[in-house]
Structure formats: C-alpha cells, structure tokens
C-alpha cells in the first residue's frame, strides 16, 4: 500500500489541469500501478470531473481493464449515469418511429398524472397519432399500456373505444384482456371484466393466431376463467408447439385453483419434446407465489418433487424471492438461512436435518445402460465422434478386460488445474486406486500414451486410447456403465454435452448416476498422494421435512464448477413446542457462533446453548442473528472458509460396493 504517495501525486496532477484522458491513454497509469490492485484512489476519483470518470469507467484505455476495475470498485458509482442494461436475449429489433411515438405517448400520460383521461383527451391523442403512425392508433396505445401494465388508462381507453359506433379492434382487445388479467390480483370485478371482454372477442372472431393466443393465455390464466385457455391451446400447438412460457402460465393457474390435472400436464410438458426441465427454473418463484397465495400444499410438493427429480438448482435471486414469499404468506413463521449440506454426514449445517442419499434403482440403471451407446456414442452419425471399427474395438475390449472398479479420464487428470500437463499425476492417481486393490481403466486419446509409459505394466491396470479427443469422454462413461452400477469415474468434467444427447426422459437418470459415481474433487497432498476432498452423495432437495424446506442454491461458478451444495434452509418457527422447533432455534444460534461443522458437535453445542440461553444476551441475539423473528437472512459458514483438512480414511475399502469409498 502506497496510497498516500499515490494520491498526493495524483492530486497534484489534477491541480495542474493535468489531462487525465491523455494520461490514461498513454497507459502510464497501468504501468505505474500494475499489480497494486488494493491502491485506494478515492481521493483521486473525487477530483475527476464527471466526463473524465465516464471515460475511466469504460476501462478502454487499459491494457488490462480488470486490474483497474478491481481497485476502482472501491468507489461507489451512485449519482452518476445508470448502469447500462444488459440486452435481453429475446430482444428483437423494433421500428424506430414506433419507439419514439411510444415515448411521446408515455409523456402525454405522465403529464396527466393522477387525473383521468377525458373523452376529449383521447380524441386529441387519436388525432395526434392518426397522422403519425401507419398502423391503427388504438392498437398502438393499448400495446404501450400493456407494456407499462397501466390498467387505469387502459380501462379509460377501452371505454372511449366502446363509446364509438364501431366495435373495438380485435388486437386492441387482446392486449386489453392481457392487461386486465395480469393486473387483476384476484379482484373479482376485474376477473368478470376479463371474461366479459373475452366473450366479446369470441363473438367477433373465431380464428386466433399463435402470438395473440400467448397474450390471451397470459391474461386469462391469472383469473378463475383459466380453463377458457384450453380450447385455444389446440391452435397454438399446431402453429407453435407448446412453449415454456405458456406452460408456466398454465402451471401457475393450476396451482392457484388447485387443479392437479392441469399442473401435472404442464409439468410433464417440460420433460417432452424440445423443452427441457431447466426452463421451469425461471418461472419457479412465480409458481411458488401462487401456490402460497392459494395455500396449495399438494401443488407445492408436486412442484418441488419435479424439481428434485431433475436435480434443478435455484438461482440466488429466485431463492431470495421465495424466502420473501414464505414470510409474506405467513408472517413471523418462517426463518430462512443459507447453509450447505455437509458432504460427510449429509446434514444441513444450519438445522442439522439429515438428507437422504441419492438412490438409483437397478431398473433405471439398466435403462441408461441400454440406450447410452445408441444415443451418445452413435447418435445421428457415428463418424462425428468415432468410427464403427473403433466402437467395436471398445465393446470387445470392455467385454474382455472388464468389469472395472474405477475408470479414469486420463487427460482430465493430467491437465486439471494448470496449463502444463503433469504426468506424475496419473501415476499417483492410479497407484492410489491400485493400492486399494481395484481394477483400474485409464481412458484417453493417443496423446496420453506418452505419459503412461511408467505405469503400463502394472497389474490390474488397463489402458485404452482413442484416436481423437472427441470420443474419450463418451467411451469412458460407456466403460463405466458396462462394468456395473458401482464403478466410479474420475473426471473433473461436467459432461453436460453428453447429457443433452440423451432423450429427455433419461437425462434425469443420467444426472443421478453421475452424481453417484463421479469423483470430481481431489488434490495431491504434500507427500504427493492422491486424496479425495469431497464427494457428495446426498440429496440437496428441494425437500420438505418436519421443520420446513431445504431449497438448493445454484452456486456453480468458475472456481466451483460442481457447486458447493448450498441450500436455503427455511424453518417454520411458529409452533415452538413441537419437535421441529427444537432443531430450529438453537441451531440458528449455533450457526451464528460458527464454531464447528461436525454434526455431533453441532448438536452438543446447540443443546448447551439452548439449555443456557442466558449465555447470549438478547440484544446480541438480535444483532447477530436477525433472522430469528425478523426473517432476514444470515449466512452459515460456507465451505470456502473451511480448511480442507478432511483426509479420508479408507480402511473400509473392502467389497464391491460404492460404500467402500465413502468417507
């Protein structure tokens, strides 16, 4: 840190009317302060003008924008121009004059403010836009109101249109129904209005197109007349196929009105055809909201069961929303806490609830085994990955040499975490498994044979080299699948591309299987021994238990491609006399103190603190753990903060069972 020198130098420069832009363009800034990312430059920045700041923030001038960005972010950006919005993926270009007119229309409305629009006003708007736009003015206005969800002006526009002798335009009416439905929030009057206009619409026209059906379903599905959507679906499927947005709207409606047939239908559609269950995730907080609003416990459990089946993780934003929803639906009854499921015991560190192990039935495994070769390796054209000869060769090889206990992705082991391949890694890994008396197969491309010279002659070890790197992952999984249900694979890869080659009804089995048998987190100790760090065999949920819910968080990032098993632990704290609450309250107190991670210790600790609550002052309690009662969030100690000292003991390594490997 040489912040004082740095800032004084900079402030001098600023006083002398130093041209900052020049300064940055010459890249001196970067040269001088390269590597000093923790330099505080607040005082410098405070002296920059707005224009200059704008320039600096863009980071264009830097050789490495990250360096600057890292220490620049100490200065908050409030009060300056808004951060540029990320462009939506679904964004499609609009007509420019249309956008300008929309702005104009919004301005007119905002000038009106709270006052209602009179008939004269609308006439004025009509004459204005009649000359300005080519399309019909009422559609334009209604669409703008629909986008803004401005129901007050929407209603007054509709009444103006109705007062005219001609019947209102069909498209304008469609937008109006969408607008009414999406803003009705359960008010009976508005729902009746939706029905009324929908009937008028039906009397006016009998054919609908896919685009207007989407809007109609978005509107109707929010009301109790949601079943009116279903006849529209026929045309929609014919011209578009069932999309995720419409299915989510129907699912939402089914949840709200306790229609389990509809919800089951909608959920099953997410598994079919071109849809993938992951699409449901973006709508999940919406569906949960309607479940809670309608008190549809069964529906909520069905939904969570579906998510659990496909091992879907919730994004952080969705979890926060859901947490808020739970608290709003039953105020004061729910406490949420972010924790994780411990990989050893399978307990939630926040509440101690034991999670189940992931089970893969024999029938499921056989199903996967049967189709894997056909769908992943052969696919539409075997030459994309391999050749028929090579495949035959592999099948014969696995028959002759198999079954194996461990299949190692050789290239992955060598190349993991580091640009330079280290050949002793594969040797250590293999030795580790051979010492456990396992039959090992190394799979890799031809390149790998260079590194396996030393270990080739070992007993119980087989190697198989493919001609290119396109097939080695798939071959590895094939060898593991053919060897049996408990054969492990050692690879850091997430293998997603292979997952999507499978039919959509088998993907969840594949997920489960991988979760069970893949070793992805290992390191080499100081003595150079291969050591498995974490292996998570437990279910992350979403799962309901006595005390509440566990919702898995999507914490996959660059450093943790397999996630950190974080969960949102939602606890019901309403009935304190019950067994459930015993787990809940004290453990929260414990989690704040954050001493230990071992579950047994946790229990002890929790009990003591529960027995003796006086050790914590009430004021402190409120301060440290505001989640109790108030419902805000605290974070239990995460995996990162933990020292990775968990050297597993493998004395139990006997028998042909996955258990031998557990820690």
């Amino acid at each position, binding site marked *: 840190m040489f912040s004082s020198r740095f800032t004084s130098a900079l402030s001098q420069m600023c006083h002398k009317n130093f041209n900052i832009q020049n300064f940055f363009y010459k890249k001196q800034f970067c040269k001088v302060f390269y590597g000093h990312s923790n330099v505080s430059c607040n005082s410098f920045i405070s002296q920059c003008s707005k224009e200059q700041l704008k320039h600096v923030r863009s980071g264009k001038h830097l050789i490495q924008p990250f360096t600057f960005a890292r220490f620049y972010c100490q200065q908050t950006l409030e009060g300056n121009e808004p951060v540029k919005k990320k462009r939506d993926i679904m964004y*499609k*270009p609009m*007509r420019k004059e249309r956008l300008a007119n929309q702005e104009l229309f919004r301005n007119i409305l905002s000038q009106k403010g709270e006052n209602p629009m009179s008939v004269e006003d609308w006439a004025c708007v009509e004459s204005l836009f009649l000359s300005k736009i080519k399309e019909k003015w009422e559609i334009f206005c209604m669409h703008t109101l629909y986008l803004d969800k401005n129901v007050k002006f929407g209603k007054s526009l509709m009444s103006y249109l109705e007062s005219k002798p001609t019947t209102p335009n069909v*498209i304008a009416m469609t937008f109006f129904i969408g607008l009414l439905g999406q803003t009705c929030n359960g008010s009976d009057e508005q729902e009746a209005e939706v029905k009324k206009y929908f009937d008028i619409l039906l009397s006016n026209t009998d054919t609908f197109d896919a685009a207007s059906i989407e809007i109609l379903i978005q509107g109707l599905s929010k009301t109790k007349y949601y079943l009116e959507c279903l006849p529209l679906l026929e045309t929609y499927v014919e*011209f578009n196929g069932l999309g995720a947005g419409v299915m989510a709207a129907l699912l939402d409606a089914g949840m709200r009105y306790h229609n389990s047939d509809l919800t089951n239908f909608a959920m099953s559609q997410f598994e079919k055809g071109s849809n993938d269950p992951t699409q449901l995730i973006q709508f999940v907080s919406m569906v949960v909201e309607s479940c809670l609003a309608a008190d549809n416990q069964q529906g909520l459990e069905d939904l969570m069961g579906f998510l659990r089946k496909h091992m879907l993780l919730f994004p952080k934003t969705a979890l926060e929303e859901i947490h808020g929803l739970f608290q709003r639906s039953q105020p004061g009854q729910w406490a949420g806490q972010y924790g994780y499921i411990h990989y050893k015991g399978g307990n939630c560190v926040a509440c101690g609830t034991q999670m189940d192990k992931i089970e893969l039935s024999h029938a499921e495994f056989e199903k996967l085994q049967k189709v894997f070769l056909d769908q992943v390796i052969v696919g*539409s054209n075997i030459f994309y990955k391999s*050749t028929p000869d090579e495949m035959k060769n592999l099948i014969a090889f696995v028959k002759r040499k198999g079954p194996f206990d461990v299949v190692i992705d050789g290239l992955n082991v060598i190349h993991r975490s580091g640009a330079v391949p280290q050949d002793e890694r594969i040797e250590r890994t293999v030795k580790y498994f051979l010492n456990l008396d396992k039959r090992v197969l190394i799979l890799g491309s031809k390149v790998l044979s260079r590194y396996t010279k030393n270990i080739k002659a070992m007993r119980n070890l087989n190697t198989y080299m493919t001609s290119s790197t396109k097939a080695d992952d798939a071959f590895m999984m094939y060898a593991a699948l053919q060897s049996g249900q408990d054969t492990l694979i050692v690879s850091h890869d997430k293998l997603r591309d292979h997952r999507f080659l499978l039919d959509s009804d088998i993907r969840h089995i594949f997920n489960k299987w991988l979760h069970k048998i893949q070793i992805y987190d290992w390191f080499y100790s100081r003595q150079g021994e291969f050591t498995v760090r974490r292996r998570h065999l437990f279910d992350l949920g979403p799962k309901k238990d006595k005390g509440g819910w566990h919702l898995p968080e999507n914490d996959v990032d660059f450093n943790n491609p397999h996630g950190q098993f974080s969960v949102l632990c939602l606890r019901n704290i309403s009935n304190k006399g019950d067994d459930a609450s015993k787990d809940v309250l004290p453990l929260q107190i414990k989690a704040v103190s954050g001493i230990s991670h071992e579950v047994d210790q946790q229990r002890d600790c929790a009990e003591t603190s529960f027995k003796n609550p006086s050790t914590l002052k009430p004021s402190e309690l409120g301060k440290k753990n505001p989640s109790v009662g108030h419902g805000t969030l605290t974070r239990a100690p995460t995996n990162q903060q933990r020292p990775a000292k968990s050297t597993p003991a493998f004395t139990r390594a006997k028998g042909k069972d996955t258990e031998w490997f557990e820690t």
Partner: protein
Amino acid sequence: MGFPQSSFISPQCLTYLHNAFLKPIIQGSNVLFYSQSTKHVFPASNMIFTKQVMSRLRLNNTTCPQTSDHLFTNNKSRSWFLHVKKSFSTASLKNAKIPSVLVKYTQDLNLDDLKEQVKKERQSTPELQLISKIKETVAAKCDEAIANLNEEEKKALKVIQLEHDFLYSEGYFIPSLEEMTNQYWLEAMDLNSKMQRLKYYLFLKKRLTLKNAEKEKIKKERMIHHPEGGLGTYEHGRLFMRIYDSTIKKWQNYNLASAMQFGTPLVIDMDYLDYMRPQDVKNTASQLLSLYSLNRADTNLPYHLHFTNCSDNHPLYRLLQIEMQDTSDFLASVSEKSYLDLYDKDKLVYLSPDAKQVMTKFDPDAVYIIGAFNDKGIQKPVSYARAKKQGIKVMKFPLDQYLNWNLGTKCITLDQVMKIMTSLKNKESWLDAFKKSVPKRKLRN
C-alpha cells in the same frame, strides 16, 4: 500502378507494348496490363489494341478445348467455351426436403427458353434482365399456388396473416402488409413456430432496407462521378479505345477455359442439402457465386472447379444459375458423380474446420475438396465425419497458428476459403494468404 483512368500512353510506348509479353493484373473490377519489357502498367480500360492482345493470347494456346462428355461443345460460331446445356429433366429431386419456395418453383423452369424470350423482349425494352424475368415467373407461380390452396391450408394462411398483423402491431421491425408478397407468405407457412416466423420477417425487412440503401447509394455515386449521366466521358476519335466489360469477361473466361484443361482441380462437394436450412442454402449459393468469380479473377492459371454430387436440378446449382443471371458461360465441371469416382482416393484432401490434421503446406498434386456447406443451423462436424467415413485425408488451415483471433466465431466463408486457396496456389505465404482473406473484425489488432 498509379495510372489515372484517363491517362494516355505515348505512341512509342505502344510499339514496345505490341511486342512485349503482356501480363494482366486484375484489381477488383479493374483490369491492368503490365508489360514486363517496359515495366509499364496501364489500365485495360484505356487499351487500344485489345483485339491484338486477345489474338496474341489465343495464339499462345492454339489448342481448342476438346469436347468432353459434360463440359463443352466445340461450337465454332459462338464463343468456344460454352457449358453444355442439358435439357432440364423434371425428374424428382434426390432429396425429398425442398429448401425454399424460390427453389421449388424454379425446379422445372426452362432457363434457356426464358433467355430466348428475354432476348426477344429486349428489342422493345432494352433494360430487361433475366433475373427480373425469373422473379416474375416465380411470383406468378406463387400466386397460382396461393389461389389453389385447399381448405386447411387456407385456414393456416389466414392464421399466419393474423399473426403477422399482430406482430407488426407489436412494433417489430418487420415488413408491413403491403411489403409482404405471396412468396413470403408461402415461405412463412413452412416454418414451425412463432419465433421462427418472427425471425424470418425480421430478416426480410432487414434485407429490404439494405437493398434500398444500396440502390440509393449507387444513385448518389452516379450523381457525383458522372454529372452528365452515364459513361459519356469516353469520346470517339481518341487514341485509345475503351475495353468493355464484355471483353474483360471474355478474357477471364478464356483463362478459366484453359484452367479447365491444364489447371489444378478443386472440388466443390455439393452434397449437403440435407443439413442446411432454407436460408443457409441461399447464403451458400451466393457464396458459391463469389467463389466462382474470385477464381475467375485469378490472373495466374485459376483452379479447375469441379462441382460434384450435383445433378442438373440440384437446388444450390439452380440458385447459382439464377444468380449468374445473363452470363451464359459457366466454366466449371458439373457432375452427378462423387469425387471418389473422379479422382484417385490417395490424392483427395478434404478441407474441414473440424479436422485434427493441420495443413502445413500446399500440395499442388493433391485434389482439395471444399464442402458447399453453411453449418449455422447444425453445428456438427458433418464434413469431417463424411471424409472419415470415406477414408479420405482431412485437413484444416493453420488459422490458429498464424492469426490472433478476436472473441467470436472462427468460421470463414466459402469465398474466403477460395481466396486462401488462390493465394496458396500462387505461392504466397500462409500469413499473407490469411491476412488477405480473413476479415479484420475477427482479428485482434
């Protein structure tokens, strides 16, 4: 090479030139002639003795191209290189999937008859072009098809029109109802989902605006360069005669014709129709067109292009013919056979971006194969898989070794591949070849 367009060459110089060996240089649309003895460069448009040059060139290669089964007719009266026009059979397509409406309705179109018709009509309307005639016939056929729709299809069309109206009123940048022709409606009916149709409409609008902008640009340029209008700046009675485009074309065609006798073959594999979407087929056709003209513009001996797996009514070939418009001479071999039947298997080298083996040097004896394929729709190693299946060598350009790529895709178009191949044939280095052909936006600094 800094000769201005209207410069003159002294009469003494001309006598030199007359005896000198003339080497033509083509820069874009300009043809320059370079005299090795006098070290003079002059633009072809100012050459007085085109005829002499042409005759000289002809003398050098006295052998006429011989008749071969699928290439030439030895027609003395007209230009001596004419692609054999087989009568277009109305046999059904090899692929059941017909790519686009334009292709569908030009399948059984007799181009020769149309050309004759255009010739006749030109006497009354001189500016009539073949392409507009083709478009007219296609539009007429589309109108007919729309009129003959059955009940179900009529209903579908109505729904799609309603949807278009709805999307337009949502403010998307798509063509209005007046801009939509029957051909567009028919194409929209082939698409399966709302999003696909919306994307198609957006594409149409974009194309329309681009076309209009181009037209206006050309108009403006004309206003600037030729205020009197047209090409009236060339006057008769000057020393130098202008070389017309047709002359240049003839000369280029001559070059191509000799390449077809003596040049290195380059195979274009046309068997990718099953893997492409309609829009990709169109793009591929236009890329093939520029590939062909780039090859033609090569001043050294160009490649002998060989379109294989290409039947006469192959949609891609059809589109290519249509886009070639009035040029009657398509100087390339076209055959229905596979390249495996035509060339020795050991010599064949498939160029594929997915290949493992990197091409280190250009082998003049090898027969390189380029797939006429745009893989925007399916990103799968189709060409690589095909070559492996047939047991041919597969190679890729050393693009990674020589270029510093920017973020984004590393794919290059067919005409860029052609540019690279031409440079390689002309013994340029890899770096030069790549720098010429790969667009700058794809590279860093």
